[in-house]
């Protein structure tokens, strides 16, 4: 795997007194580990402080929100803020809009990307690799470059202010996910397909009956990534949806930020923001195992 030949180093290792080396290494490691652990804890605290402050504000009585010195643990704790926030805006309408868009984007992405990835990984055709390279090159294309013509296109189709500009493109593949799935398909042993092929199964059947059931983890990864990207997407809904009752959670939230300074009823704003991150948080906790692993594989390959 590596260009450096490690076998050359073995003899020297044997000649050294093993025990003492082990001892110094172990004690050095222990110290290094302790330092690492302390630094990690400090880092984690710094990273989490903003989240804690968000939750703290969301649970505060209005009188404590702007208190000085700052109150870290609200007293009394006021969960009522969440209900008030949910009554202030039609939160369920926004949630349903987001869920609808995410549903179609997920289906479209999973179908189109896994089909394309199988084609690129397994089926030979002239020009296939060139197309794949072009597809990968588009990863470097900032989406802002294609934004205006794409908007004009959807506008002339009369699709602006519908979910279509946000969902339909998902059915036409996404370079990064195609790449990710292709890398996985390349690791599936060919023997499994070969026997099916000898039995006369079509590629489509092989994809459906053999490849898909084997690739649940990477498909789950793509689904999770799609969820985060779609749920957090701000630019798309912002330009394509006009009516307030068609908005997604992300854009609806931005309606309620006041002036850059003193926003009104900060505890309600933070309660809304907290509610808005709950779906991502749950998804993150449930799916962490899958997608962290995939970043590991795709990261190495990249």
């Amino acid at each position, binding site marked *: 795997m590596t260009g450096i030949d490690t076998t050359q180093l073995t003899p020297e290792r044997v000649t050294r007194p093993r025990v003492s080396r082990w001892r110094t290494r172990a004690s050095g490691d222990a110290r290094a580990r302790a330092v690492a652990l302390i630094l*990690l804890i400090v880092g984690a605290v710094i990273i989490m402080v903003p989240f804690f402050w968000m939750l703290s504000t969301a649970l505060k009585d209005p009188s404590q929100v702007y208190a000085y010195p700052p109150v870290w643990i609200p007293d009394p704790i006021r969960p009522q803020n969440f209900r008030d926030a949910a009554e202030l805006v039609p939160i369920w309408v926004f949630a349903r809009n987001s869920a609808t868009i995410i549903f179609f984007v997920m289906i479209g992405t999973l179908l189109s990307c896994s089909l394309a990835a199988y084609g690129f990984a397994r089926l030979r055709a002239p020009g296939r690799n060139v197309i794949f390279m072009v597809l990968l090159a588009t990863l470097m294309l900032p989406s802002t470059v294609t934004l205006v013509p794409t908007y004009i296109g959807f506008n002339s189709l009369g699709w602006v202010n519908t979910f279509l500009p946000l969902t339909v493109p998902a059915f036409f593949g996404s370079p990064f996910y195609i790449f990710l799935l292709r890398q996985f398909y390349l690791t599936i042993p060919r023997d499994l397909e070969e026997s099916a092929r000898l039995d006369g199964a079509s590629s489509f059947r092989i994809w459906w009956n053999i490849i898909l059931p084997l690739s649940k983890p990477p498909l789950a990864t793509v689904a999770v990534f799609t969820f985060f990207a779609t749920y957090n997407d701000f630019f798309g809904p912002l330009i394509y949806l006009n009516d307030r009752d068609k908005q997604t959670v992300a854009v609806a939230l931005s309606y309620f930020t006041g002036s850059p*300074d003193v926003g009104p009823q900060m505890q309600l704003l933070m309660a809304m923001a907290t509610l808005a991150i709950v779906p991502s948080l749950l998804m993150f906790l449930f799916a962490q195992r899958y997608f962290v692993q995939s970043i590991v*594989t795709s990261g190495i390959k990249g």
Partner: protein
Amino acid sequence: MVASKNIPGAAGPGDNPVRKNRLSIRTREAIECYLFILPAILGLLLFYLGPMIASFVLSLTDYDLLTSPEFIGFENYRELVEDELFWQSLRVTAIYSIVSVPVVLALGLFLAVLLNQHVPGTTFFRAVFYLPTIISGVAVAMLWRWIFNTDYGILNLLLDKVGIRGPGWLTDDRFALTSLIITSIWTFGGAMLIFLAGLQGIPSELYEAAELDGAGRWRRFWTVTFPLLSNVTFFNLVLGIIGALQVFTEAFVLTNGGPNNATLLLPVYLYRNAFSYLEMGYASAIAWVMFLIVFILTLIVFRSAPLWVHYQSEGDDR
């Protein structure tokens, strides 16, 4: 690259039936391949290559969506050169990228190295550091607005405790961009995960060997870790540059380009021209300049790669 395993040279050159059969299998496979990748090809044409070309054509026109576009040659580009706001947005974007990208990479690498020390709770820490990357978006931007609030934000309240009078983070044009950069640094977790993956691919024998040669921790990092991780750094750098040039949500929600255009990142300026002023042609010209910048930067990074990226020879080519 793709050796045909099915027929291991059993059929002689004159063996006509087999040859014919094999060709037809090939044709069938090619047709199937094209069918499988057809949606992706259409997507490539409809949402990437097509709009890219259309964007260039549009940049040569004056178009407001309502009346038909009028061809004006390179007028938009000429205007861009004289547009002070455009230069301002280039400057802001450059400062943002030049500070944010290296800091995010350095922090990502540092924490990845720490996480790789086999301390207890690695999974927990990894999740904590990655969390801001996942939850980025409007909710987090709102949170930062609250944190950066001049009079009641927690940041200034804490600074006040140590006797520093905090600035108007989002309202003072000397600090607004800094605030934006701070929020971006918070999301270093993506780069960190990719570094961590790279670190786990480095064989421990190399460290042991370096240790035997008397290399200390610092030396081991620079002689083993850094060179072997350079391709991962490269990947992160390319992703980071492209990402930094596309930041929109944070700039839009936190400051909307202000105060005094101090945070007018290129995408924000493009958005303003396209959707506030309906200057589709002008916005497309901005988009193309942006594309050229990304292209040139990526080219520089790729060209400079042989100088500092150490590629591991890959044993498997498939």
